[in-house]
């Protein structure tokens, strides 16, 4: 019997009843799988605690100095002195939290300032800030596409996009990952007069591959009544002359109706947003439930975000160094014989594909013991049922750190037999 069942309320699930079922029973296979894995003596990849965080690239885990290669801190803004100072000032002047919705008492001067910073950063007429990136997708997709409308999404879309679909009343149609032909075909089979929202991502976060947006946009524009939303969560800061994302780098800015993004990656704090030039966009503030029915971000958070966004407008040198880091790590790991998620470096994410859970956990732990933290990712988060170690680089990783990282992968990969 599992521990969960043993501690359940006796009146409802009497211990003497054999195979007693309750609402947790459906998780028994997962509980058993985890228990079996942890029984082999490995550390739990999903229970890491950072005891100290020294910089965007260094932390202390169980007393060991560790290089961080599994954060979304692409531009290293978390410890930027201007960003931290802005947060402290707002904390002093406006307090710890707003205790209210954006549409009631939860919009402070700082929330307007961060929306102004976003409008400048993206060159759009509107910007709407949500409490998380997850809520931004949840809110935009479920509110834009209503009953009788269609949402067309990539099969490898992030969970927040899928959940936005499930929260709404629209019909949901999937196409094969990054397949322009599949997207075109499916749009062609839908009623021409139905209103459609096509949801794409600039960078797909598991393998770090980039969407062929110009081809996809051209396919969408062959069909009537389509609007396009691009999630640039992993593209903001790094791609395009102004750091707006993959859609800017690939030159399709005029064809995209909505950009969704997050403050929890390159911006270095937490929060989500949507920017748009649609003339009626502001009505979303009244009709979007994940915007209305939740507390707004704390004043310190919006102050750090606004400062960070303004600094990211002029971060060309950081972008160049991050790109160099990505290219070096991709080449280093390829030369060592690892199988990577993309043949060429496409983003700040480099995914090492492994054969199974045991091998993935073994190398993950070996790296941790050497002083390197990476993300371990497993199904259902990963495409095609793969187990992978996801490395995400930071503009603050030094050349020396990248050399060290490649050395640690060599040692760990050989120790567990993942490479020869």
């Amino acid at each position, binding site marked *: 019997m599992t521990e969960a069942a043993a501690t359940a309320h006796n009146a409802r699930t009497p211990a003497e009843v054999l195979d007693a079922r309750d609402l947790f029973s459906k998780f028994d296979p997962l509980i058993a799988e985890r228990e079996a894995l942890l029984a082999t003596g490995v550390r739990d990849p999903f229970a890491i605690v950072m005891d100290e965080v020294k910089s965007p690239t260094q932390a202390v885990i169980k007393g060991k100095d560790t290089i961080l290669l599994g954060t979304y801190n692409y531009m290293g803004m978390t410890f930027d002195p201007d960003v931290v100072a802005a947060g402290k000032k707002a904390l002093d002047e406006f307090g710890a939290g707003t205790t209210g919705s954006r549409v009631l008492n939860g919009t402070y001067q700082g929330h307007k300032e961060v929306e102004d910073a976003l409008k400048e950063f993206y060159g759009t007429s509107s910007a709407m800030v949500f409490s998380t990136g997850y809520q931004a997708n949840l809110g935009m997709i479920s509110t834009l596409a209503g009953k009788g409308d269609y949402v067309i999404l990539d099969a490898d879309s992030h969970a927040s996009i899928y959940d936005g679909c499930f929260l709404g009343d629209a019909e*949901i*149609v*999937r196409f094969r990952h990054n397949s322009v032909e599949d997207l075109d075909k499916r749009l062609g*089979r839908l009623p021409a007069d139905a209103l459609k929202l096509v949801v794409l991502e600039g960078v797909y976060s598991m393998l770090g591959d980039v969407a062929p947006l110009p081809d996809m946009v051209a396919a969408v524009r062959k069909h009537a009544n389509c609007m396009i939303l691009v999630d640039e969560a992993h593209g903001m800061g790094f791609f395009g002359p102004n750091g707006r994302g993959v859609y800017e780098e690939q030159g399709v800015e005029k064809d995209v109706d909505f950009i969704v993004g997050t403050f929890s990656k390159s911006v270095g704090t937490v929060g989500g947003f949507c920017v748009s030039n649609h003339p009626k966009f502001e009505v979303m503030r009244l009709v979007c439930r994940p915007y209305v029915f939740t507390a707004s971000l704390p004043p310190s958070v919006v102050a750090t975000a606004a400062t960070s966004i303004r600094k990211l407008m002029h971060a060309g040198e950081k972008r160049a160094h991050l790109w160099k880091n990505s290219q070096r790590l991709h080449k280093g790991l390829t030369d060592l014989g690892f199988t990577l998620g993309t043949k060429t470096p496409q983003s700040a994410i480099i995914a090492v594909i492994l054969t199974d859970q045991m091998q993935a956990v073994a190398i993950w732990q070996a790296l941790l013991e050497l002083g390197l933290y990476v993300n371990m990712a497993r199904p*259902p988060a990963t495409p095609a*049922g793969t187990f992978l170690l996801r490395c995400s680089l930071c503009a603050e990783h030094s050349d020396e750190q990248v050399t060290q990282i490649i050395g640690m992968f060599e040692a760990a990969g050989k120790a567990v037999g993942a490479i020869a």
Partner: protein
Amino acid sequence: MTDRQNIFDSVTAQIAPFNKKEIALTETTTFAGDLEWDSLTVMDFVAAIEDEFDIIITMNMQAEIETVGQLVDAVAKLKTT
């Protein structure tokens, strides 16, 4: 042969490459229970069926389809609309 029988035969032909355990297919064979398909297999299979019949089976519809017979009925209905 009826239209429905034709559709049934085409559907079972499409199932074949995904039927790793070579389960005998009837109207009541279930995708999750009998064929033990995971969500990724379902995704690939649905795409194959959509392309075969030139239709769209939305995720909303997929949630209601559990057996081969239900899928054949759904395809028959979608082909006429």
